[in-house]
């Protein structure tokens, strides 16, 4: 996994030639003009008005009027990195039998992300078990089953229309019986305004907690990088109902920059843990705030 570099994946948006051109282009601009431009870049990257303003305020304080573009941009990068690295983004699988649950709205990429995690940890030698707890969407069961076959990782399936909590309960029994190391739970996508479905997540979490001590170790919000200002609201609601330990940012190989995670980290004190950069099982990266910020501002 470490062999893939986020910047390689994002070479469309980042070129050193462009950096040089940028420096030259900005050589006769004063600080205010540069700050205006950088604010625009941040807004276009979905950072949002209030986070952008906060960061720009800090930038004003820390830079000097005589500073040129490279210096101002560097201070800005440092500022954002400071925010993003406030909370440790380690993935906690220290327990012998760890349970990981993925939650999020429809179409975020939960199942693909689950397969990526399964692939990565089985490559590391862990015994991984996946459970398809999406018993609602057409072909969700088949989708994960096909991933399982492709990656040679066992999948616990449920019946369409079954209570997902009961599917997970069965999976937990099987997980214990098999003595597997890691249980990865794929839940159905849900819009956070649907209270019934959000309460279903609450119930799922209770079932897991009751069955296995300290579990679930990780609950990740799957967030599409192209999501706008609604991202913070989504994260807040999922945090409230399912609980969250971090964010898995998907589809970062497109043109969207995923800037909306900045306000999530800031306001909800949640780290970003993984980044998805493609459709294949290997297209998974641990989050690096440096690389994320460079891509964000390019």
């Amino acid at each position, binding site marked *: 996994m470490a062999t893939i570099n986020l910047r390689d994946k994002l070479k*469309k948006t980042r070129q050193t030639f462009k950096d040089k051109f940028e420096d030259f282009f900005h050589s006769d601009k004063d600080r205010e003009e540069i700050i205006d431009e950088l604010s*625009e870049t941040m*807004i*276009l*990257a*979905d950072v*949002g*008005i209030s986070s952008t303003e906060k960061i720009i305020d800090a930038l004003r304080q820390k830079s000097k009027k005589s500073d040129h573009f490279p210096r101002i941009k560097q201070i800005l990068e440092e500022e954002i990195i400071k925010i993003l690295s406030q909370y440790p983004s380690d993935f906690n699988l220290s327990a012998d039998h760890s349970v990981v649950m993925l939650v999020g*709205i*429809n*179409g*975020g*990429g939960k199942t693909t992300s689950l397969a990526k995690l399964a692939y990565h940890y089985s490559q590391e030698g862990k015994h991984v078990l996946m459970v398809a707890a999406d018993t*609602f*969407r*057409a*072909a*969700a069961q*088949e*989708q994960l*089953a*096909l*991933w399982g076959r*492709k990656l040679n990782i066992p999948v616990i399936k449920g019946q369409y229309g079954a209570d997902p909590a009961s599917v997970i309960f069965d999976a937990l029994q099987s997980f214990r019986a098999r003595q597997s190391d890691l249980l990865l739970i794929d839940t159905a996508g849900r*819009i*956070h*305004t*649907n209270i019934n479905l959000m309460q279903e997540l609450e119930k799922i979490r209770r079932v897991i907690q009751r069955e296995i001590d300290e579990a679930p170790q990780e609950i990740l919000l799957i967030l*599409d990088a*192209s*999501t*706008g*200002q*609604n*991202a913070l*609201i*989504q994260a807040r609601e999922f945090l409230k109902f399912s609980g969250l330990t971090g964010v898995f940012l998907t*589809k970062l*190989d*497109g*043109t*969207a*920059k995923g*800037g*909306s995670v900045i306000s999530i980290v800031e306001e909800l004190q949640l780290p970003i843990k993984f980044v998805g950069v493609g*459709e294949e099982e290997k297209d998974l990266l641990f989050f690096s705030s440096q690389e994320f910020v460079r891509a964000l501002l390019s």
Partner: protein
Amino acid sequence: MLDQLSNHLQKAMKYLRGEGKITEKNMTEALRMIRLALLEADVNYKVVKEFIEKIKRQALNEKVLSSLSPTQHVIKIVKDELTFILGAETKGLNFSNVPPSVFMMVGLQGCGKTTTCGKLAKWVLSLKKSPLLVSFDLKRLAAQDQIKQISQTLSLPFYEMTKDQVSSPQKALKDLVKFAQSRGFDPLIIDTAGRLHVDEELMKELQMVKNLLNPAEVIYVGDSMTGQDAVKSAQLFNDKVGLSSIILTKLDGDARGGAALSIVSVTGKPIKFVGLGEKFDQFEIFYPDRMASRILGLGDILSLVEKAEKEADAEEAEELARKLRKQEFTLEDFKKQLVQMKKMGSLSQILDSLPTGGIYKGLSKAKIDDKKIVYYEAIISSMTPQERENPKIINGGRRRRIARGSGRPVIEVNQLLKQFFDMKKLMKKSQFQKFLSSLPPLSH
């Protein structure tokens, strides 16, 4: 939804309200706030910029500058412009003259394309058509299974596209059209692979499908929660494939949906439907004015109240509402109301902005021809105070006198009286009383 965005707008509006006139200077400040509000609603930065420029030009013209009520003008301009960009009216689906009509669905991964295929199939079933769902997505795992299960749910046959078939797509698609023609399927709803739009290969594939099938509709499925990037993907699909219309998904969430404005602005294509949930019947026709209100966070009724607030003396309105409730409504009140209505704009327009169903039903019966307001005013002015208090005393002789005094024919006097008595009858109905009590108070 009403929260931050409308707070911002209201702040902006108040700023204007304090001023007698719109000047370039205070206009700039107000527009800056509207700009921020739109950005928070995820409208693309560049789209916002253009939008603000347009508003600025319109608001700064002479008529607005000399107006006594700048707030009203700015609200109207902002909302009108938003509605204009979103499309002046609701548009239906295009069908081909020769069946089958092909609807080709395109969009990014996870935008809700496949679910929307099912919704669209259900919709055309209600038009007494017989749709066929086909997935041309061979990349995503279980894409065929998903369409198969959706077809089963809707009791439609399933036409599978196998890997072999798609290895010679020209033939596969021709076979498909022949199949549809011979079995009488129309429309053919084609689901395509979703990928990130940077993918040239996908674009070529979509172009090929389009060239072979000559679709009646190429529908871009867009996620309403998308941020600034909405512009790029919609534009790319429009440039490379060519779109005919748009369906906006996930509007059951609480995103303000600024993406709608971005997508329509860059493609110039109409939004025809919106998706409001995971079930196949959670699908509705798109209404540009409602979307404008959603983005602005102001309901139609709210703006109506605001209108009434400005134009009518609040106390008088309260008094009128009290009388309506107690059914003490007289011709004198009727006249006062006519005068206010003239100020507020056309009555039929006001009635139109209220919902037509439920408790509001029957209100349309009270509809008055706008031109007649002036005549009615003249007729009532020609009555004595006693006649206005107690119209039952108006006999044939009095009618002729009133007609002469107002310069209107007797028949019109009769019409007015009939309408007045009809209105009184309507007011006695519990429905109308309920309607009245459902209105928010007119004064703060």
